[in-house]
């Protein structure tokens, strides 16, 4: 006789057996531990290998200080410029109907599939001292390559799609009706943008800017090529890490790296917070 109080073993038709489930979860943890968590922890362990004081001291050196300031300046210029581009491109693409729209979107995405080193190379060939344009600019006292403008251009190239990519799907989904309503109520174009469009896309914009900023501060390949890595002049934080590392100044290199890693963690934290609180207004969490 069966005991009526014992639960009937029921296996859901749309779930894997518990063994398989725990195996997969275990594999996910193991894989991410080796590939992601371990390197992240390693950055801080290596940075603090000689204690906090040594680490802070290396960050206080003039070269490190200059690199930090330069990286912040580069981001402060290139990120807003890319945000303006992203908003303009998303407006143009989602509010108007024109031929070649798909092609334009592909062009905007292009920098993601070009190697950063090739991107840097392109800028050197375009604006380098022995190119036509670059030679003229250098002759008039405006060097681009091995100077700040080149670094900004390189940074903008590699981060070019971030904001536009995030805004376009959001604005397609929101449609044009609210803007049209504002216009019929007598609002000017700017007023419509500031009071209707911008409030609707602000979280998506912030999300795109966040990712754009993380990449802008961390860009290495493209900046390596165009900056010349002149210490105290065009060396950014990532290129400074390389130089310090190659001089076997491990603590100093990892200390700068730790600052960037903290920034990455902060970015992820803000990004996750946005995804939880404003999921309905983001493209990344709201596809299809």
């Amino acid at each position: 006789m069966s005991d009526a109080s014992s639960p009937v073993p029921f296996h859901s038709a749309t779930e894997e057996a518990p063994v398989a489930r725990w195996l997969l979860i275990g594999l996910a943890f193991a894989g991410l531990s080796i590939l992601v968590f371990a390197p992240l922890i390693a950055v801080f362990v290596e940075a603090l290998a000689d204690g906090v004081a040594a680490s802070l001291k290396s960050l206080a050196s003039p070269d490190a200080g200059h690199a930090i300031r330069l990286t912040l300046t580069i981001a402060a210029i290139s990120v807003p410029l890319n945000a303006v581009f992203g908003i303009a491109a998303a407006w143009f693409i989602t509010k108007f109907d024109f031929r070649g729209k798909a092609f334009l979107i592909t062009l905007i995405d292009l920098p993601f599939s070009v190697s950063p080193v090739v991107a840097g190379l392109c800028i050197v060939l375009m604006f380098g001292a022995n190119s036509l344009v670059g030679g003229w600019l250098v002759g008039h006292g405006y060097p681009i390559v091995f100077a700040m403008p080149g670094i900004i251009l390189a940074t903008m190239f590699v981060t070019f799609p971030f904001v536009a990519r995030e805004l376009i799907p959001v604005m397609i989904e929101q449609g044009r009706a609210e803007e049209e309503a504002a216009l019929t109520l007598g609002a000017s174009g700017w007023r419509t943008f500031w009071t209707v469009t911008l409030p609707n896309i602000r979280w998506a914009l912030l999300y795109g800017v966040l990712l754009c900023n993380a990449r802008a501060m961390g860009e290495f390949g493209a900046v390596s090529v165009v900056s010349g890595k002149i210490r105290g002049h065009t060396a950014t934080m990532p290129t400074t890490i390389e130089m310090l590392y190659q001089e076997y100044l491990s603590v100093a290199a990892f200390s700068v790296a730790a600052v960037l890693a903290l920034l990455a963690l902060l970015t992820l934290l803000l990004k996750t917070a946005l995804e939880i609180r404003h999921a309905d207004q983001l493209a990344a969490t709201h596809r299809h």
Partner: protein
Amino acid sequence: MHIEIDEISKQFGTTAALNPVSLSIPSGALVALLGPSGSGKTTLLRILGGLEFPTSGRVRFDGQDATGLTVQERRAGFVFQSYALFRHMTVFDNIAYGLNARPRASRPTKAEIVRRVTKLLELIQLPDIGPRYPSQLSGGQRQRVALARALAIEPRMLLLDEPFGALDAKVRKELRQGLRDIHDTTGLTTVFVTHDQEEAMQLADLVVVMSMGRIEQIGKPQDIQARPATPFVREFIAA
């Protein structure tokens, strides 16, 4: 205001959304543009509101050429099918939007705006919902707020795109009467788009039946029912 549509056509790429159509809407009339989807009725309404440019033809308001007027200059109270309420603003701010958007010289004072919005909320019989957000309203309430928002700009005409499309049968009947009442009190020339022949026949003074970018028949509801001009009209109103 008297609206005159003179040989208006609209091409989208190679397809014609509107073959040249002409229509005269007398001042103060309540007109239904009736037809199945794809008949061009919404396109015609959007051309009246300045949201779409005609490929050819002219629109005249009280005899004056209005074809080149911008959306803002038309002062058409437009109610969208999805209502298009500004989701990040309260009901109050939604209704006040058009008044706040006016250039400083003609903008009413803050107190005057409050007075007018309050009056409009009373007109739509929802006096207490000013502080709420659109997402906190029912479908019928949203529709009425959209109507109040359109009326706030003191429009020269009222244009409504499927105003009852997204509502259930009971609310739809109530709001039909509401629209009739508002039309009768304001005396505004009103054009609404619908695919529901019963709605058009009950509500409108004048019904314009459209199909495939053409006007099939213009007439009073009872005339259209009694004497359908084309086989299409006969079949459509029988459905």
